[in-house]
């Protein structure tokens, strides 16, 4: 993956360039930034390397078509939604299962999460955090502590705890979410 002469231009600017002259060249530059992520997401859902590569190509085509039809403001979130929906549709077609499609709203939650720490003063935050951390289940508490406080990698945590890398990631992710929920409960209870 080489550095390109467009690396200094951000996604938003590339989108604006596309909307200005409708040249797919700009979409190409944008999409190439996300090929690896798209490949990963497609593989996660489809669990087949060839199908995942095919799906990435379909998502590329769909993106080019859709961007000509309407204006997109947040390319990365939108592309993620397109990719996820494409994979879910493909799974539904092949397995006959019903999956619910995700919508923009879900994607915004992560972006809003950062605001909680602004509601408290630092000291109160630390106290709340310490007590909330103690309330997490053992696996989540261990993984969150090793990852955030001891700055260990997934692999190091996996070796130390005996969990798989996937379990480590999931424990950190769920632990962080539960920690926020616990803190929010404590704050709203006061």
């Amino acid at each position: 993956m080489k550095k390109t002469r467009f690396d200094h231009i951000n996604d938003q600017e590339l989108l604006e360039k596309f909307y200005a002259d409708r040249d797919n060249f700009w979409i190409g530059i944008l999409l190439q930034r996300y090929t690896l992520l798209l490949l990963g997401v497609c593989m996660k859902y489809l669990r087949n390397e060839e199908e995942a590569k095919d799906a990435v190509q379909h998502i590329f085509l769909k993106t080019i078509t859709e961007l000509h039809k309407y204006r997109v403001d947040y390319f990365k979130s939108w592309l993620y939604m397109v990719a996820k929906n494409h994979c879910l549709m493909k799974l539904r077609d092949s397995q006959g299962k019903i999956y619910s499609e995700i919508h923009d709203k879900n994607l915004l939650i992560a972006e809003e999460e950062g605001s909680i720490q602004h509601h408290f003063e630092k000291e109160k935050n630390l106290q709340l955090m310490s007590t909330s951390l103690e309330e997490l289940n053992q696996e989540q508490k261990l993984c969150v502590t090793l990852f955030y406080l001891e700055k260990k990698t997934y692999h190091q945590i996996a070796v130390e705890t005996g969990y798989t890398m996937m379990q480590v990631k999931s424990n950190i992710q769920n632990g962080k979410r539960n920690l926020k929920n616990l803190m929010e409960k404590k704050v709203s209870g006061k």
Partner: protein
Amino acid sequence: MQNLIDILSQSNKDIDNQKLMDYVSGKLSAEDKHEVEKWMIDNEFAGEAWEGLHQFSKKKELGIYVDELNKELARYILEKKKRRDIRKIQQPSWIYFAIGLILLMIIVAYLVISKLNK
């Protein structure tokens, strides 16, 4: 204590493709790995991608797959542009042809009418 606050902070950094590729290929130091992983925890897109990339049998080939997909995309876009350019070039010649035909018909009509009047 600062680390405790860091748990709830969101990673604002955007990890570039090369760093992510180096991460997947296992070329990063523990510190850089931790930085990428912290970013993935806060970024749903990257987090899910990590889960998928983890499942590839030959992780060292991921770079090749990405290059192939990018080349295919560039080729498609170039072909589409060529087709559009050809259409653009062909379109005016039809317009000129139509105008010429109309002019010719007007001249012929004028000649016929003026002959009939005589």
